[in-house]
């Protein structure tokens, strides 16, 4: 890496000051602009959609009567028109009394504790979809990338066609095709169709990363391995790919960050990922500004920690 020209001493701090000033000015501008529109900011509503402290409701499973044990720690519901009974323990707050008549789905009590709110649950699904898609994208990309550098014309052309089609069409359109066409034909759940669409999309980019990684390994490596009697596959597996992997890691990590962001598009299917959760929270709070800023911050949290990790990885590989 070429040494950057050093800006030294007080001048450097000056420029940091300029940076801070511009950020503050932008923030102030944003604040001013939001004051001009008729909008009531209700940030206080938001935390409960990220982490809910309300606890979990215990609801009556059927119409029946409530009874408590002598120590009051066990609650029993006895079915009114039948023989069913149900016991509950470990609740914090009781909302019914001894002998009360309750109807199905009435809240009897609340379990204590902190629960993830809808936004955090959405974040979880986003992570789950991204991670799962990544695994399949890596496999697909490895196969297609090897196809790109293969001598066999069928493998070459197949891989090239796949990459060109995927890279030449919008992801949103691909998602619709996976959801409405492939998902219907193969009877896939929305989740499976979403993972498949993202994996197929990202796999095309991974294939190019794999191809570039392999082509970056000097030709002499393959020749040396072949001259020792190793097959092409053995040479790939033991000599070329391990070296290509080092070059591939940084761009692969970047592709994973893209994948996380791209996954927001699966919210058009019936999947409550972070983006869809944001939409749902907006419709129940009527606080779109706060919600979308929070959703953006949560995405940034994911991608930011990932790029931090990548930077560390790159530094470690550079030293090796």
């Amino acid at each position, binding site marked *: 890496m070429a040494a950057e020209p050093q800006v030294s001493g007080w001048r450097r701090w000056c420029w940091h000051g300029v940076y801070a000033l511009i950020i503050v000015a932008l923030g102030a501008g944003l604040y001013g602009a939001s004051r001009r529109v008729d909008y009531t900011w209700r940030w206080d509503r938001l935390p409960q959609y990220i982490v809910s402290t309300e606890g979990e409701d215990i609801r009556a499973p059927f119409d029946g009567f409530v009874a408590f044990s002598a120590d009051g720690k066990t609650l029993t519901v006895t079915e009114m028109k039948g023989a069913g009974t149900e016991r509950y323990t470990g609740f914090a707050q009781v909302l019914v009394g001894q002998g009360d008549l309750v109807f199905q789905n009435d809240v009897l009590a609340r379990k204590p504790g902190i629960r993830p709110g809808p936004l955090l649950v959405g974040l979880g699904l986003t992570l789950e979809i991204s991670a799962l898609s990544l695994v399949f994208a890596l496999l697909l990309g490895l196969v297609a990338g090897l196809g790109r550098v293969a001598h066999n014309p069928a493998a070459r052309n197949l891989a090239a066609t796949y990459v060109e089609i995927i890279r030449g069409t919008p992801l949103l359109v691909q998602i619709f095709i996976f959801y409405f066409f492939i998902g219907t034909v193969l009877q896939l759940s929305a989740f499976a169709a979403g993972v498949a669409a993202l994996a197929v999309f990202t796999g095309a980019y991974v294939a190019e990363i794999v191809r570039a990684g392999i082509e970056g390994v*000097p030709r*002499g*490596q393959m*020749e*040396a*391995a*072949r*001259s*020792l*009697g*190793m*097959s092409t596959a*053995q040479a790939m597996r*033991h*000599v070329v790919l*391990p*070296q290509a992997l*080092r070059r591939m890691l940084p761009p692969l990590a970047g592709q994973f960050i893209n994948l996380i962001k791209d996954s927001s598009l699966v919210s058009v299917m019936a999947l409550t990922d972070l983006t869809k959760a944001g939409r749902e929270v907006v419709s129940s709070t009527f606080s779109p500004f706060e919600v979308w800023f929070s959703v953006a911050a949560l995405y940034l949290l994911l991608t930011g920690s990932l790029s931090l990790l990548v930077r560390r990885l790159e530094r470690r590989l550079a030293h090796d």
Partner: protein
Amino acid sequence: MTEPLIELRGVGKSYANGTQALKGVSLTVARGEVVCIVGPSGSGKSTLLRTLNALEGIDQGRVVVDGIDVHARGTDLNRLRTHVGMVFQQFNLFPHMTALQNVMLAPQRVLKLSVNEARQRAEALLAKVGLLAKADTRPAQLSGGQQQRVAIARALAMQPSIMLFDEPTSALDPEMVGEVLDVMQTLAREGMTMCVVTHEMGFARAVAHRVVFMDGGEAVYDDAPPAFFAAPRNERLRAFLGQVLKN
């Protein structure tokens, strides 16, 4: 020293871009013979060597190595290559492995030796090239001369009957040339069949049984060292030797 181990008959080779690198080369190398190949840059020396283990294909002629018709359809090239070791100008060691792992890899994967067998063999060979102490060192931490000695050990680990060297000392600093040539001389004395492309005329004179002069894709002149260097009857060779031996 009569059984031919390598036999080329009228070998011609053109690259995809039209360059005619070999124009009907015929050459025989007997078992135990050391043949040095000299000639100006671009004369086809590397190409010739690489047709012997099928790193390059040929358009005309026939190459028979150790009784195997190298370029015939259906030849098991992987098996052929286990008989033919090759040492490259740029060493081409595997940078992600230690010296020991470099030497162990092919015996383990190709010959299916156990880890212990492969390690014993590799350690013996590293000792032979004087680098047992560097067994756990990565190539990047070795000098050029040391890397080339590891590369020789790596090729020997397959117990080949023929060793090919393509300018093994051309990428080395002058003070490291000697250590590599010493290892090669030891090999020659042990009776290894060797084809060596080199500019080291001193080595050719001292070690080779025969020296072949290549020019413009042809094997122009082929003789035992004293005659080759003393009284070449070929004009192009005279010019070449005059240039090389001047410095």
